[in-house]
């Protein structure tokens, strides 16, 4: 969503970048076994670096090309990353939580509800990230620059905003946040090559909420997740995988620009 908001490019390698950060954590855990916090911090920092490098090496060359061409490049990037990860880390399942020497205890929430420690940490991290990103976009110079570039890159450029630096920052932040999500999912339920599917499910959430809208991403995620869980409970688990996309289709029929998006944005898509 960050990348789309700034450059109008849908990054379809999002799931693979999430997964890459988690695999980086696995390697760092092996290297720095006795320093779990260092391994975590290193994985997060490297995922930021990966975003920067990807922009500089790959996506920068797509500047000025059709948006669809850039989107296709992200598809190819995803395929490439998947192959590299299988070669490097094989298809086996890893459990970074145990490798770090930590325990993912269940915590009773009252009313018969329980959640794992990492699941609660994930919720907390999501709240922190959203607040942080909101503050970043509203109150910092770079955040305002990113919004300006997203609104009108030509005008922003004429006003002296460095487009490439802004795009690179968007890629770095997007891979950082995606990487954090990947790391948290891996800590909670292990890591294998199916994690990319989670990234795919992020698109219905973002589109339902409205592309480019932080508020929309939150609400869209809630709607898609609730629909999925309710389908498992009351219809059939087999339909749970298609439910996010059914919700998306319904939204596209009723309000194509999503709950918090604008008509102008959907026209650009």
């Amino acid at each position, binding site marked *: 969503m960050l990348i789309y908001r700034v450059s109008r490019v849908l990054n379809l390698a999002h799931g693979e970048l999430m997964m890459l950060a988690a695999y980086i954590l696995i*390697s760092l855990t092996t290297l720095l076994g006795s320093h779990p916090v260092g391994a975590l911090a290193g994985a997060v920092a490297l995922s930021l670096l990966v975003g920067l490098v990807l922009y500089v090496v790959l996506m920068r060359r797509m500047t000025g090309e059709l948006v669809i061409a850039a989107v296709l490049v992200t598809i190819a990037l995803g395929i490439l990353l998947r*192959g590299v990860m*299988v*070669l*490097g*880390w*094989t*298809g*086996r*399942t890893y*459990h970074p939580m*145990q490798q770090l020497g930590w325990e*993912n205890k*269940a915590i*009773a929430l009252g009313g018969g509800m*329980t*959640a*794992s420690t990492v699941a609660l940490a994930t919720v907390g991290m999501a709240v922190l990230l959203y607040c942080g990103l909101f503050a970043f976009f509203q109150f910092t110079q770079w955040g305002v620059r990113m919004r300006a570039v997203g609104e009108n890159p030509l005008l922003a450029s004429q006003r002296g905003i460095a487009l490439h630096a802004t795009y690179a920052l968007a890629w770095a932040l997007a891979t950082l946040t995606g990487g954090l999500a990947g790391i948290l*999912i891996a800590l909670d*339920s*292990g890591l*294998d*090559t*199916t*994690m990319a*599917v*989670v990234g795919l499910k992020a698109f219905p959430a973002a589109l339902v909420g409205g592309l480019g809208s932080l508020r929309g991403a939150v609400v869209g995620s809630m709607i898609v997740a609730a629909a999925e*869980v309710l389908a*498992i*409970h009351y219809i059939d*688990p*087999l339909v*749970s*995988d298609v439910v996010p996309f059914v919700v998306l289709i319904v939204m596209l029929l009723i309000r194509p620009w999503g709950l918090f998006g604008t008509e102008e944005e959907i026209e650009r898509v």
Partner: protein
Amino acid sequence: MRKMIAGYLIACTTLVPGAAAAADAYVLGLTGDMTGRDSANSGAAADGIRIYFERLNAKGGINGRKVEVLMRDNQSEPSRAATDAQVFVNNDDLQLIISASLSSTYAPTIAEAKRKGVPILFSAGVCPTDVFPPKADPLLFCTSGYAAEKDVEFAVDYMRKMTSGQFKLGLVSMAIPISRGGMEHAAKYSAGKNIQVIGHESAPPPTVNYAPYATKLKDAGADWVLSWAPWVTQVKTFEALRQQGWSGRFISYGHNVAEEELKRIKDPGFLVFTTNAMFSDNQPIHGEIQAAAAGKTKYPYTYLNEGWIAATVIEAALKKVAWPPSRAKVAEAMNALTVDLSGLRGGAIVWSGQNHYRQDLYYRVYGWDGATNRVKTVADWVNKPVN
């Protein structure tokens, strides 16, 4: 990682079937899932086979001849498996195809192999129905441990034996035909045994969050949960159940990853039933595998037993083949074969003209012993004849 990639590149350049096969070697073609969605299982089996024959060749081979294994990665994609099979059957020096991938690749591989009369050994996935008695296909053979219906029958009998009075049973499968079918069979087989089946949860293959399935099983009051599915479905459902405070017992099929997972999970209520002996048995053969695997695979050595078993059987068959070998001679040798597995299973693999699976299935149950902090045998070998 660089080392691993380099290893793959070297393997690709040296093991491709285009390379001329040595005229004085037995030639086998392995089409396996080395980098696909089943690579943790099939890739490890393929590694087991490769390492076994590397070791055998270093000791002089079979009847003084080396064994050359041509390896191709099909990623469990049927089209790739078909291409691999075409390449293999058109290699006149090749005597046997080994399949180490998901059952979705079987049909094209079998079609190609039958066209040219090449025998196939299935070494990692579910055995095709054509290997079972009474009418085994003369070209198809299987050494892998899976037999959905017989497996779940053993598990149901075990739970019945271990529990007094009526109990509530939850079933978990992955939404693929073989797994769903196995669990549906378990539900039928439980009838009349004072077992109340309270639900069958079937998760689609890409499921990440198993909590909703666990919630349904827990809320239904399951005392036992049985799962015959790919490992990820089994273990993630169990872990989701425990996260929700469920205190019942869970029994699942013991894939090659099971031993490492038992060590990781450390929960005495999590049991696995398997046809392969675990390395915790510490038999001499386990030490041999561990030593042979050192530095030669990316997988833990405990993953290699399926591949090792397949290679042991192939060696026994090739020993019976007079030089020069041919496809027909290898198939003939495999049609009447008895192979002692040195304790890797509960008994020998015995093949006849009618049965290319095995005459007897042996099951063991393993679990975690909190007192000794190690994997232990919970129930010793139980024999189930294959009729």
